[in-house]
């Protein structure tokens, strides 16, 4: 839905709590973090944490863990692998969707703003509700579909060149940084698949072992699911894995146009 203004109960109270660094701290960096507690009736607020970077790890995730361990244990965020492979800690850092675990504080300004992924319902603090995002992923049937039975004595074979086609799109970790950066996804995520799900749709379209290419394209020949992409390219800009969802969406459009003639 188009919403240029936040609903009244989502507007942010800028006068949140402030946690000063200990006196004598040498390398202080300020973090302004979005907080929302679903159990209170309060609007979201911005809390300010001054962190002595001399006593903290280098990444934004290190800062969040330090805040949770030492300052405010109620701070809520998702994290797991801390090495950019699980996609849990996707959030908006200084206006850019990225992974907190691979985002170095040294590359950011003296004051760092940390928000949840934009235009998603917030469950608590930095945790967005990804239910619809996962439903979209499920809708593209992200599994091998075949009519030919598997060979009895070995796996389904693929040439090296065929494997290389799915190599890159398979590296997507479904962190949702791309989809949550896409204005078209913001306005129409109820019907538009978004770059992440479309990248995965492409991954199965170009899989040489898959035999449902036609059915997959049929499902994508939709004014919203695929064609809400207006090549804004925020997705490619945001991807923390350096993938190119926009290019794969263009490839899907080309496949659909190709089979018309």
């Amino acid at each position: 839905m188009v919403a240029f203004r936040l609903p009244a109960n989502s507007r942010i109270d800028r006068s949140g709590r402030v946690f000063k660094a200990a006196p004598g701290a040498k390398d202080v960096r300020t973090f302004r973090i979005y907080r929302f507690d679903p159990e209170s009736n309060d609007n979201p607020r911005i809390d300010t944490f001054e962190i002595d970077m001399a006593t903290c790890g280098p990444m934004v995730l290190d800062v969040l863990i330090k805040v949770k361990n030492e300052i405010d244990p109620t701070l809520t965020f998702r994290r797991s692998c801390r090495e950019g492979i699980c996609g849990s800690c996707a959030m908006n850092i200084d206006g850019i969707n990225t992974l907190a675990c691979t985002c170095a504080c040294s590359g950011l300004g003296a004051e760092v703003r940390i928000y949840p992924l934009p235009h998603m319902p917030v469950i608590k603090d930095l945790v967005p509700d990804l239910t619809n995002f996962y439903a979209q992923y499920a809708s593209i049937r992200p599994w091998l579909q075949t009519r030919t039975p598997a060979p009895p004595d070995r796996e389904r074979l693929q040439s090296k060149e065929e494997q290389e086609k799915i190599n890159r799109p398979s590296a997507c970790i479904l962190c949702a940084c791309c989809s949550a950066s896409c204005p078209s996804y913001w306005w129409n995520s109820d019907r538009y698949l978004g770059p992440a799900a479309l990248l995965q749709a492409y991954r199965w379209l170009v899989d040489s072992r898959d035999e449902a290419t036609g059915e997959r394209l049929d499902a994508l020949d939709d004014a919203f699911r695929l064609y809400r992409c207006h090549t804004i390219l925020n997705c490619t800009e945001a991807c923390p894995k350096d993938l190119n969802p926009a290019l794969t969406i263009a490839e899907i459009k080309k496949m659909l146009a190709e089979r018309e003639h």
Partner: protein
Amino acid sequence: MSLRTPLGRFLGLGATHHAVGHWVAQRLGAVALVPLTLWFLVSLLALPAFDYATLSGWAGRPWNAVLLLSLVLALAHHSWLGVQVVVEDYVHDRGAKFAALIVLQLAHVLLAVAGVFAVLKIAFGSFA
């Protein structure tokens, strides 16, 4: 309140189909409009004067009329396809969306017919 699953909700009424035709038509129109618009501007600017007699004489010549008709039709069609996408992007109230799409489509048809009629009237004016 709905207890529908998230997947069921997203799949909704299913794929619209025919979307690729819309996309191809929009791009074909854009490609056609590049030479047509250039031709239109260059030939207009090359005219010695901009009075009624010169302009209607220019527009009435057979190839000029054919290209003008193509320009009018391509422009109206391309504009309709683009405006349709904008409305679908931004208008989410179902009633308002359908009303806007119907009004805009009819307005584009009306403009196209008016443009075609104007060119034909000039081109065949002497026979009327």
